[in-house]
């Protein structure tokens, strides 16, 4: 099954070579930089793990096998963390190439979970599927 970066209640913003992800469901924020951001952006551009690995190897000239292993491990980690999901892939962006100056560095994300308490205080974020169920009127 394809991977998608479109995950309910996950907000993403790109700032130059950085990606910030905010999970409104559990209050955790993530910062992706360097190769981590490029992998996420590659998935967002509807590239497979293999395509992303190959592009990163081409861009850096580093060992394709070890890059492929690192990309697969990082993708599995993002899947486990809920930063990507299995489902219908995002729209394919025709021109995508990783922007990665220098050598390939093992991707990792920074995780900020200091906001979880705030989230739990008042978890109204977006219209849920349950909507606003009116109560049955009392019968006289």
């Amino acid at each position, binding site marked *: 099954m394809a991977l998608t970066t479109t995950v309910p*209640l996950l*907000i993403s*913003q790109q*700032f*130059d070579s*950085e990606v*910030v992800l*905010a999970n*409104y469901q559990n*209050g955790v*924020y993530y*910062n992706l930089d360097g190769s981590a951001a490029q992998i996420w952006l590659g998935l967002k551009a509807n590239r497979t793990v293999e395509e992303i690995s190959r592009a990163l190897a081409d861009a850096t000239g580093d060992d394709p096998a070890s890059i492929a292993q690192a990309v697969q491990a990082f993708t599995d980690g993002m899947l486990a963390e809920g930063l990507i999901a299995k489902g219908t892939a995002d729209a394919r962006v025709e021109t995508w190439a990783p922007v990665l100056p220098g050598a390939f560095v093992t991707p990792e994300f920074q995780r*900020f979970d*200091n*906001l979880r308490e*705030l*989230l739990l*205080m*008042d*978890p*109204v*974020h*977006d*219209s*849920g599927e*349950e*909507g*606003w*169920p*009116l*109560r*049955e*009127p*009392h*019968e*006289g």
Partner: protein
Amino acid sequence: MIPARKAGRCASLMKASQRIRQEIAAVFANTAMPIEAQARCGPFGLRLGFSSRELAGTFLPAYIQCTPETIDLDLCFSAADHHDFSALVPEAAEKPRLLIEDGIYSVWQPAVIPVLFAVDLAAKRGVAWLPQGEAPPWIRSRPAISLIHAMMHETPWCAVHGAAVGSGAGFTLLAGEGHSGKTTAALACAKAGWLYAGDDFIAVNSETGQIEPLFCSARLRPALVETFRSFIGETTEVSDFNGEPRHELSLADLGDRIGGGRLRAIFIPRRRGAATLEFTPARQSDAFRALLPTTAYELPGWPNEIAEKVARIAGLAPVFFADTGTAPMEIPAAFTRQLERL
């Protein structure tokens, strides 16, 4: 005559938004509010109605009272003994709810002290209903902000969690979590004669960088009382919610110095032990992370739109971390020097 069972079924078939619209209309059609006032709140003019003196006393001190050029929202504050909105309280009332449907935006916040907010965006009428006649302190200091957020939908404006102050050198937006020093810096600047746009939530135009105050309230920790005693009136209420005492201030006495202006810089206050204020360049993503969390959590609905607006705001001006030091009264001069360098 419709049998009771059938009538009940008809009522339950009515969409929640229809029911809420009806109830809002009924409030404004049938009731003259004993206490009325006008205020500006960000880019909007408000006509406020309160069903009792107690409610007016609870919420009015936070509003910037004036006669606005236009009325963008008629807003009624009411309690259970004046209006009965209990039919609108959703099933499983212990859970918070959000409804955005057919021009109706409504939020049910049960928490410890429940509050229902609802606005008919087409009719420009809203209600804040307090079943117990009282509201938590953070709602008293920024009344009905979720309804203001709803009115900003599909506009460039965004209610943003942060403080903002301005001088001749421009306005600075102070972004960061609680206890980071936003209130200290903002009140120090206000005390030094700067324009004050708020210490908690402010309105920012994400296209132009225009900042406008939403409220004239401030919430002061006891540790800051001595530093800012001049802002604390004799009757200032001290709230204590979840063990966090706060002096609930109205800065209405600042008069014309409650105001806005154009964003010149974003400072992210933090306490890293510097003796005097130190600035360190920061990134747009740092400003985004400092601004978004509380903004998004306090403003239900349209999370993607909020994130996009906040990202744009984070890119409108240079961003710096500001280690605020140990001498609050030196902050205004340091801010001025930094703003003049830009």
